[in-house]
């Protein structure tokens, strides 16, 4: 096939890509975007599949069988099982207008240029092998296609076809293409609709061409999968497509873990998935669409590899090029050309996206901070800097590709495609701790990230990159075999004597150990600055902070709107900024005047816009130059935040205190009420005692005086008056006795003599004492006591007192005409119950409790004043309660009150006591 045809097809293809990008960009400008859907988004993420997938997987499968698979397992795990991490990263990128992975990490750890620079250097150096891989594949595939002789199929010709190296031409061509694509306008965080569409188109092309070759091989050369695998097995190739027990599981693990880290941390994957994401919700479809793409593109890897092995049996053909050499071998030139275009699309998509992502980082996180420091350059003057920015980026793209070419020259001749790619993966994996830690752990600090990344990168250099130089002869081979200066402990492939692992696992183990270890321990030991803490919180709690605008209101400067507009305009372009500011004003329904002082939201808006163009670290410095003097009291802001939280805590404590006070007040009020009640009770008691004492005294004094003053009264009258004196004296004595008893009982000073008491005997004794009174009032007494009554535990005298009080009460209140009193005793399970029932009017329903109170006298319901102190029932209650029983009154249905009380049985009481 002539070189002219291949070149023409190549440039036609690239032209088509450019046309697609232009067309889509124009549509986007007219607000008719074509790319805003999850399918285009997913296809753009398929930039993950590069020449490595297109050529390298087949090459690996041809020699090591299923080992090509883990590289696709990792991304599948991430998207299917942990897409949350993408949601979080994308949200953070949108909120903070992140432009690249370097910007992301620098912004998280305090927007300092040092970290962004380090990430950029690691990314550029780490991507070098990857780009060289693409260059190598394009150059090799081109040469194979052009000189498709029998010999060329076996050995890729290494002599140049043109007057200079093919690979260099490819590198420069790709650089120009990337420049055309990626640096047409400046705000990196705006979406490059055209670029994304072109990348998605390339993903379709590489998938379709791969499937075409696969179908040709499987169904054209063989009779389907079964036939192909059977024929391969005949030739002894079955170990390639069966899972062997002696498979190297550690390598599988390593590759899976590496590819999990890579799908997040590769600069181009981060860029296309997070920075170029048009809509978070697209992720929902992507979580299954992207793994599906990976599955489909891998279906024919093994068949093509096996077909290549069968076709070139026994010859040392370059298995990485089976995609081309197999069709050529069977004289399918057009199909081979088609496959070449597929490989070209796989390579160009990677190179373009990587170059754009890296050039943004180099410009924003490496060159700009340096320029800002370099006072010789008048960057702080009011020139339009958009041109400078674009130039820096274009040069960066060229530089990145030249570096890739350099690595190709130095190292990649002696390695397979997959081995080169894995070196890049291992470099990208160094970002994983800083990224994942940064969005889940607020305590991670700048120093920790810096140390971890730096050390991890150094170990990567030492265990993977430098040895690859040595193997290509650019360093003495003794470096690998004996260690530097002959120190065997430092041999790069078996560091500190760690043998038995493949190089990749070995390198990943040491670099990650050092990286994570330093990241974690230094973060714990170092003090975070205020801005680190703020950014840490904003990143980790991004879902909580998204909707409030308090985020970064740490600008308290007095820059005018005109200042800001001018500053941002220098980097983004005056017209675009004027438009953006106008939109900002319109969104908030405010009228912006040029001389007006910008508020915090305005400053924040300007900073974010600036960050979109030149990265967050640089943007912060530039903002500082405009809002100079009055601002950036970040530590102060943080102190204010601290104070606020202290005030909140303090007021919380105040609230608690005041609640406690309220409770205490309520308790005091209750206690006071109770005291007042007690006081009024005491008052009432004293007043009643006074009354009860004075009443008999009145009669005593009156009749005493009458008898003294009237010696002439009849004998009959004299006797009557003297009897009154005796009766009232008795009444007075009894009252005093009862008062003293009650006082002693209430004070707990009563001398009780508790004993086993025969209830029947006690009742009979009480009744005997009352016989006179009963007869005097003509009341019939009926006592019912069952035989064999159990004894009770009580004070015998007090028990008799209770009976006397109750029965004499009953005598007072029973029916005057035919008074009748029933005394009934019944044995309960634990108690004896005694009831005294009269046939009087009964106790008013609302009085059944109050009759037991001191000095309660039923004044209202008897014609004649009853004789009594009003203490009898109160004393009864004291006694019964002390003995462990209860006393109460109920009205009988036919009239009459029934007073009952219980006393514990002594046998039951003994049992209970012994049980305890």
């Amino acid at each position: 096939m002539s070189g002219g045809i291949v070149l023409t097809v190549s440039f036609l293809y690239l032209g088509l890509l450019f046309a697609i990008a232009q067309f889509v960009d124009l549509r986007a400008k007219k607000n008719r975007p074509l790319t805003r859907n999850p399918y285009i988004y997913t296809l753009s993420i398929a930039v993950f599949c590069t020449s490595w997938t297109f050529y390298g997987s087949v090459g690996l499968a041809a020699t090591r069988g299923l080992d090509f698979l883990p590289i696709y397992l990792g991304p599948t795990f991430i998207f299917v099982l942990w897409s949350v991490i993408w949601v979080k990263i994308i949200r953070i990128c949108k909120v903070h207008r992140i432009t690249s992975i370097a910007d992301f990490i620098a912004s998280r750890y305090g927007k300092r240029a040092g970290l962004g620079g380090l990430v950029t250097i690691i990314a550029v150096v780490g991507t070098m092998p990857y780009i060289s891989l693409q260059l190598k594949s394009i150059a090799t595939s081109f040469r194979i296609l052009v000189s498709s002789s029998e010999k060329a199929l076996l050995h890729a010709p290494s002599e140049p076809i043109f007057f200079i190296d093919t690979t260099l031409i490819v590198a420069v061509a790709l650089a120009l293409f990337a420049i055309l694509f990626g640096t047409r306008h400046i705000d990196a965080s705006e979406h490059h609709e055209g670029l994304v569409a072109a990348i998605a188109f390339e993903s379709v092309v590489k998938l379709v061409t791969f499937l075409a070759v696969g179908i040709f091989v499987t169904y054209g050369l063989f009779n389907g999968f079964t036939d192909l695998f059977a024929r391969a097995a005949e030739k002894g190739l079955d170990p390639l497509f069966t899972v062997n027990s002696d498979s190297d599981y550690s390598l599988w693990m390593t590759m899976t873990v590496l590819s999990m880290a890579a799908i997040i941390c590769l600069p181009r994957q981060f860029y296309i998935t997070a920075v170029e994401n048009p809509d978070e919700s697209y992720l929902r479809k992507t979580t299954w669409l992207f793994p599906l793409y990976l599955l489909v593109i891998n279906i024919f890897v093994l068949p093509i590899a096996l077909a290549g092995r069968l076709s070139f049996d026994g010859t040392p053909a370059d298995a990485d090029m089976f995609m081309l050499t197999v069709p050529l071998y069977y004289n399918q030139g057009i199909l081979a050309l088609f496959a070449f275009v597929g490989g070209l699309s796989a390579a160009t998509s990677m190179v373009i996206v990587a170059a754009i992502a890296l050039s943004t980082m180099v410009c924003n996180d490496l060159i700009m901070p340096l320029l800002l420091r370099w006072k010789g350059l008048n960057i702080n003057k009011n020139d339009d800097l958009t041109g400078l920015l674009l130039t820096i980026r274009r040069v960066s793209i060229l530089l990145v590709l030249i570096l890739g070419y350099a690595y190709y020259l130095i190292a990649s001749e002696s390695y397979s495609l997959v081995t080169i790619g894995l070196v890049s993966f291992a470099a990208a994996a160094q970002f994983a701790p800083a990224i994942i830690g940064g969005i889940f752990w607020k305590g991670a600090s700048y120093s920790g990230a810096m140390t971890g990344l730096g050390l991890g990168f150094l170990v990567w250099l030492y265990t993977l990159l430098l040895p690859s130089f040595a193997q290509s002869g650019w360093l003495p081979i003794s470096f690998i075999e004996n260690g530097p200066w002959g120190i065997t402990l430092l041999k790069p492939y078996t560091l500190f004597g760690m043998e038995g692992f493949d190089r990749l696992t070995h390198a990943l183990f040491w670099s990650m150990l050092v990286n994570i270890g330093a990241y974690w321990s230094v973060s714990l030991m170092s003090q975070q600055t205020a801005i680190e803490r703020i950014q840490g919180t904003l990143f980790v709690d991004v879902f909580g902070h998204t909707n409030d605008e308090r985020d970064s209101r740490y600008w308290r400067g007095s820059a005018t709107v005109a200042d800001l507009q001018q500053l941002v305009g220098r980097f983004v372009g005056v017209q675009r900024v004027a438009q953006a500011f106008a939109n900002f004003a319109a969104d908030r329904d405010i009228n912006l005047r040029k001389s007006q002082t910008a508020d915090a939201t305005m400053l924040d808006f300007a900073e974010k816009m600036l960050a979109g163009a030149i990265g967050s670290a640089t943007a912060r410095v530039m903002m500082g130059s405009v809002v100079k003097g009055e601002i950036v009291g970040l530590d102060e802001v943080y102190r204010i935040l601290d104070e606020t939280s202290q005030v909140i805590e303090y007021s919380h404590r105040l609230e608690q205190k005041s609640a406690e006070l309220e409770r205490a007040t309520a308790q005091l009020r209750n206690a006071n009420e109770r005291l007042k009640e007690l006081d009024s009770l005491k008052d009432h008691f004293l007043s009643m005692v006074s009354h009860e004492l004075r009443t008999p005294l009145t009669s005593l004094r009156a009749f005493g005086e009458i008898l003294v003053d009237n010696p002439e009264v009849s004998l009959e009258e004299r006797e009557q008056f003297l009897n009154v004196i005796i009766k009232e004296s008795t009444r007075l004595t009894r009252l005093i006795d009862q008062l003293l008893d009650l006082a002693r009982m209430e004070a707990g000073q009563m001398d009780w003599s508790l004993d086993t008491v025969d209830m029947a005997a006690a009742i009979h004794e009480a009744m005997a004492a009352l016989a006179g009174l009963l007869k005097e009032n003509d009341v019939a007494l009926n006592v019912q006591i069952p035989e064999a009554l159990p004894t009770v535990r009580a004070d015998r005298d007090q028990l008799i007192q209770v009976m006397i009080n109750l029965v004499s009460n009953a005598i007072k209140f029973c029916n005057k005409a035919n008074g009748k009193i029933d005394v009934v005793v019944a044995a309960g399970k634990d108690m004896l119950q005694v009831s005294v029932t009269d046939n009087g009017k009964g106790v008013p329903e609302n009085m059944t409790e109050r009759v037991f109170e001191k000095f309660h006298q039923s004044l209202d319901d008897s014609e004649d004043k009853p004789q009594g102190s009003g203490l009898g029932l109160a004393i009864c209650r004291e006694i019964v309660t002390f003995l462990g029983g209860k006393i109460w009154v109920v009205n009988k249905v036919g009239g009459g009150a029934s007073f009952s009380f219980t006393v514990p049985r002594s046998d039951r009481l003994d049992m209970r006591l012994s049980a305890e």
Partner: protein
Amino acid sequence: MSHTVLVVEDEPNIVLSLQFILRQAGFTVRVARDGEQALRAIADYIPDLVLLDIMLPKQDGFAVCEAIRANAACRNVKIIMLSAKSREADKERALALGADEFVTKPFSTRVLSKLVKEIVATRRTILPTK
């Protein structure tokens, strides 16, 4: 014609002593055992003086005093209140309700007898304001 004294008292022995000294002093004595009886007695015959105990069944002495003072026909009835509660508050209340005197139990029969004679002899000039 002798003056009539209505004794309102529920303690029988005190009634007995009051009856004795008042009769000796030449008064006609009527007795009521509680507040309601007292009001019925007054409706029946207006006495010259009421000896009124405070702690009474059914209606207490204050209520009876108030009822007497509310009755225009009893304009000239004198009231001496008796109480075994020696609280100042009760005395003030009694006087405010229109009682002419307030006597604490136990009382001296000699003093009480003299007091009743004096009060009956005076003309009531001040009508209580309600």
